[in-house]
C-alpha cells in the first residue's frame, strides 16, 4: 500500500488536495496571519480607547457639558464636549474624578448592572441601554419633577437609591442598596460614559423618527 501511494505521489504533479498535511499547513498559516493582524489592530485600538485617547475622554470630562450631535462628515452621532458644567456643583481634579469613576465601575460590577441593562449595547436586555442615560430626556422631563430635585444628577441619585419607590411603567428596577456615595459615583460614571465616541451608537438618540 505504502509503496503504491509513494509511487503515485511521485508521478503526481502539483498540490495533493486530499492530503491532510496540505490543509494543516493552510490552517496554521491562516491562523498565524490573522493573529498577527489582530495583534497590530489591538495595539492601535488600545491607543484610541485608552483614557485620553481619540474616542475616550479623560475622567475629568465630567466637569463639562456633554452633548450628542449628528456629524455629517462622519455620518454618525458624536459626543460634543462643551463648557463648564460641574457635577453636583463641584469641579473635580483629574485624580478626584478618576477615584469617583473607579468607584462607579465597582458599583456597576458589584451590583451586576450588566445583567439587566446594556452598556454600549452589551449586557442584558431587561432594562434600558445606559450608554447615553446621562443625556436621557426622561431626567429633566419626568424624574426631576417626580423626585423634586433641582438638578439631573441629584434626581439620578435619588432614583438609584430607591428605584423601587418610583413607578417605571411595566418593568421595575429592584433596590440594590446603593449608599449615597455609591449612587453619586455611579452617576459620575454614567456622565463620563456618555462622552465616549461609540461610532454613533445609539443612533438618533432622543429623536423620534418624525424629527429625523
Amino acid at each position, binding site marked *: *500500500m505504502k509503496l503504491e*501511494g509513494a509511487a503515485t505521489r511521485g508521478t503526481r504533479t502539483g498540490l495533493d*488536495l*486530499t492530503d491532510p498535511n496540505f490543509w494543516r499547513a493552510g490552517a496554521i498559516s491562516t491562523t498565524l496571519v490573522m493573529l498577527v493582524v489582530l495583534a497590530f489592530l489591538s495595539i492601535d485600538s488600545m491607543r484610541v480607547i485608552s483614557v485620553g485617547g481619540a474616542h475616550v475622554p479623560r475622567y475629568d470630562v465630567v466637569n463639562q457639558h456633554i452633548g450628542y450631535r449628528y456629524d455629517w462628515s462622519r455620518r454618525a452621532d458624536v459626543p460634543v464636549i462643551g463648557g463648564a458644567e460641574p457635577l453636583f456643583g463641584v469641579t473635580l481634579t483629574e485624580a478626584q474624578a478618576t477615584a469617583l469613576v473607579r468607584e462607579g465601575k465597582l458599583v456597576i460590577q458589584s451590583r451586576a448592572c450588566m445583567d439587566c441593562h446594556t452598556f454600549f449595547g452589551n449586557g442584558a436586555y431587561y432594562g434600558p441601554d445606559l450608554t447615553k442615560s446621562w443625556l436621557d430626556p426622561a431626567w429633566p422631563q419626568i424624574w426631576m419633577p417626580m423626585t423634586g430635585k433641582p438638578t439631573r444628577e441629584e434626581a439620578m441619585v435619588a432614583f438609584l437609591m430607591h428605584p423601587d419607590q418610583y413607578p417605571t411603567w411595566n418593568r421595575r428596577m429592584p433596590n440594590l442598596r446603593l449608599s449615597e456615595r455609591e449612587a453619586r459615583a455611579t452617576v459620575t460614571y454614567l456622565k463620563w460614559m456618555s462622552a465616549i465616541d461609540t461610532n454613533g451608537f445609539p443612533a438618533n438618540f432622543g429623536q423620534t*423618527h418624525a424629527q429625523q
Partner: protein
Amino acid sequence: MTPAALIETALLLGVLVLAGGGYGGLYSVGRLRARPALVRAGWVCWVAAFAVALVIAVATPLEAGWKLLVLGSAIVYAVIPPVTWRYLERLHVEAERGR
C-alpha cells in the same frame, strides 16, 4: 436608513443565506440520491439567492462596499456545494484506494 428599510434589508440578507442553504441542501441530496430534479431545484434556489442579492444591491440603502460583498457572497455560494461534493467524493475514493 428608514425603519422600514432596516427590517426589509435584514430579512433580505437572511433570505439570501437561507436560499444559499437550500441550494446546498437540495444539491447535496440530489447528488446523493442521483436525482437530477433535486439538483435542478437546488440551482433554482441559488438563482433565487442571487436574485435576492440583486434586490439588495439595487433597492436597499446599504453602502456600496457592502453591496459588493453581498453580491460576491452570492456568487461564492454557487461554488461551495459542487466543489465540496466533488472534494468529498475524491477524499473517499482516495481512502478506498488506500485500503
